[in-house]
């Protein structure tokens, strides 16, 4: 599962779990993270570049105002685009930051605490994003 893009894992460097393979639960979690990052990444390659092009090249950023949003969110296609992008981007980002936290936080208590903050913050932003979209749909 480690690829060229993945250098020495600090866990190995510090010799904490050198020889033994991780338990199957941890391995399953890592496979799930791996697939989440790759699949959402593939979706986001299209959605985010499309979103950036739309709001900076096709429309100048100064013209991407509230009226522009109102026009766009009047269409189910754009709502689906933004909803998918919101969910995929947060899942992708949180999974990526999760991996970085595991790499850089050696103390297990501190690690659990930092991961809890990550999950809570991501859930809060996901809720805020969907509330924004829901209000636009209901209006």
């Amino acid at each position, binding site marked *: 599962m480690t*690829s*060229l*893009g*993945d*250098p*020495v894992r*600090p866990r190995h*460097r510090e010799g904490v779990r050198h020889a033994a393979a991780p338990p199957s639960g941890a391995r399953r979690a890592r496979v799930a993270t791996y697939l989440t990052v*790759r699949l959402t*990444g*593939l979706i*986001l*390659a299209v959605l*985010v*570049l499309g979103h*950036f092009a739309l709001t*900076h*090249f096709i429309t*100048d*950023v*100064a013209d*991407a*105002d*509230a*009226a522009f*949003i*109102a026009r766009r969110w009047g269409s189910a296609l754009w709502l689906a685009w933004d909803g998918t992008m*919101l969910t995929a*981007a*947060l899942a992708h*980002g949180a999974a*990526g*930051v999760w991996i*970085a936290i595991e*790499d*850089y936080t050696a103390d297990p208590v501190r690690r659990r605490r930092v991961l809890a903050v990550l999950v809570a*913050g991501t859930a809060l*932003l996901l809720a*805020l*994003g969907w*509330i*924004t979209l829901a*209000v*636009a749909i209901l209006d």
Partner: protein
Amino acid sequence: MSAIQLAFLLALTGTFAAVTWFAVVVVRGAARSDGGAHPSWALVRRLGRSPDERAELNRWAFYLHRLTGMAIFGFLCLHIVDVSAYTVSPSTYDDLHELYGTAPMRLFESSLLFAILFHTLNGLRILAVDVGDLGQVPAQRLLVGVVAVTVLAGAAGTALIMAPVLT
């Protein structure tokens, strides 16, 4: 400047600070795993080696991928909050959004474009390396392509983004 604009700029500054701090963590981690407290000198020495010995370019790509990922995630968090101003009222959103059209923010958006391009293309490269089970030589060739497209497309995009405030 309105209160909401000030709040946005403060949050953006906080995001910058967090990403800078993360960059220090990544570089210190890199110094640890690359051996020695002077990664810059080690890098200068390595640049003199033959290309075949520079397998570590993949590692530099990894660190850059991590850093751009955190920067984009930081902006994503801020962006979800700033778009939610639309829920308060469209005029609140417009007030906040005025910032996006200013020259410094356009400069920031251009650098964001570079980060997104590198992260996207390098991510697709990693996917290709994994799925195609590519070795180090093709992986490194792909990396050269990733950097080239990032620089060219980023420069073209920057020209488009900056044009309204330059002319």
